[in-house]
């Protein structure tokens, strides 16, 4: 079995981004970048499936700037076998990313595409579902557990009411949720080894896919500020304020 893991280079989850004064976007100059945390969980799960003998090969792919190789190398250091980087200087929207991934799937023919449920920069939560649609494949979103049962993949999903398990015919797209696993740290020897693993590079323009954007960002602004309130001294004072000042009890 072959697993394809798309990963995205995003602003590190610890960074509190700032909106640019001209409202054109957020300031990404000199900001720490990382692999999208949900994608890290996807890499971990793919590598685990390989270690368990369920998968033979794990391929990491990223669509983004030249520097997204850092994130692919991280995936390789975690245990993936090889990488594919599709370079693009412009941001590619989820639909465009899904179309590029479709082209890659047609060439690589993976059994499972495993990726994060959402990127923590644009918070859109859609690329995996879109890829599944374009391929006509089944989808298991927000996964907290994956089990191969015969020729089906059982995916336990984190849903609003609790957990739901679905059986998917392969090939399938699975998107990860937080409880699926805890990603490993790559060891130094593995980081060194990852530098020698194969990484193919292609420009987005060579993919033969229309990725022209459908959405235009008119402005990016600061969210409304919430003023800090007051400190109360005791539980009694708190209850009194909630009853008589805020009127919410």
């Amino acid at each position, binding site marked *: 079995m072959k697993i394809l893991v798309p990963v995205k280079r995003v602003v590190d989850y610890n960074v509190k981004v700032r909106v640019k004064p001209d409202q054109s976007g957020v300031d990404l100059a000199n900001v720490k970048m990382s692999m999208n945390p949900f994608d890290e969980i996807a890499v971990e799960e793919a590598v685990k499936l390989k270690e368990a003998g369920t998968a033979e090969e794990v391929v990491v792919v990223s669509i983004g700037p030249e520097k997204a190789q850092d994130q692919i190398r991280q995936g390789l250091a975690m245990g993936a076998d090889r990488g594919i980087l599709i370079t693009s200087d412009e941001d590619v929207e989820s639909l465009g990313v899904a179309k590029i991934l479709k082209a890659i799937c047609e060439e690589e023919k993976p059994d499972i595409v495993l990726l994060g449920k959402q990127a923590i920069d644009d*918070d859109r939560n*859609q690329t995996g579902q879109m890829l599944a*649609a374009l391929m006509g494949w089944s989808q298991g979103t927000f996964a907290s557990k994956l089990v191969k049962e015969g020729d089906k993949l059982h995916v336990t999903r984190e849903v609003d009411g609790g957990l739901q398990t679905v059986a998917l015919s392969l090939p399938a797209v699975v998107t990860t949720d*937080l409880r699926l696993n805890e990603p490993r740290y790559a060891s130094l020897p593995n980081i060194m080894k990852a530098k020698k693993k194969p990484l193919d590079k292609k420009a987005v323009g060579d993919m033969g896919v229309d990725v022209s954007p459908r959405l235009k960002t008119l402005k990016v602004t600061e969210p409304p500020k919430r003023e800090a309130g007051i400190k109360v001294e005791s539980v009694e004072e708190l*209850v009194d304020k*909630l009853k008589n000042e805020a009127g919410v009890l």
Partner: protein
Amino acid sequence: MTALVIAEHDNETLSDATAKTVAAASEMGGDVHVLVAGSGAGAVAEAAAKIGGVAKVLHADGEAYAKQLAEPMAALIVSLADGYDALLAPAGTDGKNYMPRVAALLDVMQISAITGVESADTFVRPIYAGNAVSTVQSSDAKKVITVQPTAFDAPAGEGSASVEQVGDGVDAPSVSEFVGEELTESERPDLSSAKIVISGGRALQSGENFETLIYPIADKIGAAVGASRAAVDAGYVPNDYQVGQTGKVVAPELYIAVGISGAIQHLAGMKDSKVIVAINKDEEAPIFSVADYGLVADLYDALPKLKDAL
């Protein structure tokens, strides 16, 4: 223009989020129809017909829609899409699952979890865990949208829409099947729509402490129980209790955060609450910067007192 709102339901009850999504659709101008796809969900279709401002309800009845699986839901919605300029669903786990599939099948870029409607093609949505707000204009002929229900008020008044049966002859793809579910049983109000929410964090230290310290207060004031990611990861409470950027977004009248430091990812899920109370023993905790009322105290001392004082 005409918009189709996909109802969120469990075949028995229509979610509050559906009416709020109708409100968002109405702000785009034009007629609003609602699709109820389910199995034996006739009562849900009747309830949808009563939402203010709804002109028509489409009801698709079939076993394939019983669990809202993405593959059959998307096939159905796409089969109905021709007559509509916009397709909207609440940004719950059902809508988030099938709407991007619908969007890709229609070659449309979805606009996710909107919090505002500027016009029929321009929308407001948070990015970077709510640290920035973007206004985006879509050039797609048809709009596919998920709606953050807490950002909209349900329409006023009661509607009396007609209910029409649809969906005959739509082939449901057979690539996925429902195996089972473990739903969290609770007598307490639904977290997403509760008027009061009390949430616990890592400082609760165990599921037992949630049971002995948080739940009795929740039951006394009719609150739903939420949690930080740390408390869910540690297994103190089920996954569906998580409030935050990638969990549930809530905006109750009163949000009580107990032993939660206030990481930006958590704040993204609750900072639109009307009144926020923080109880934390670390007076430097970031949660205090968004709290209307802060109490610097050890929760093991404060919570029993709070229960008695209520």
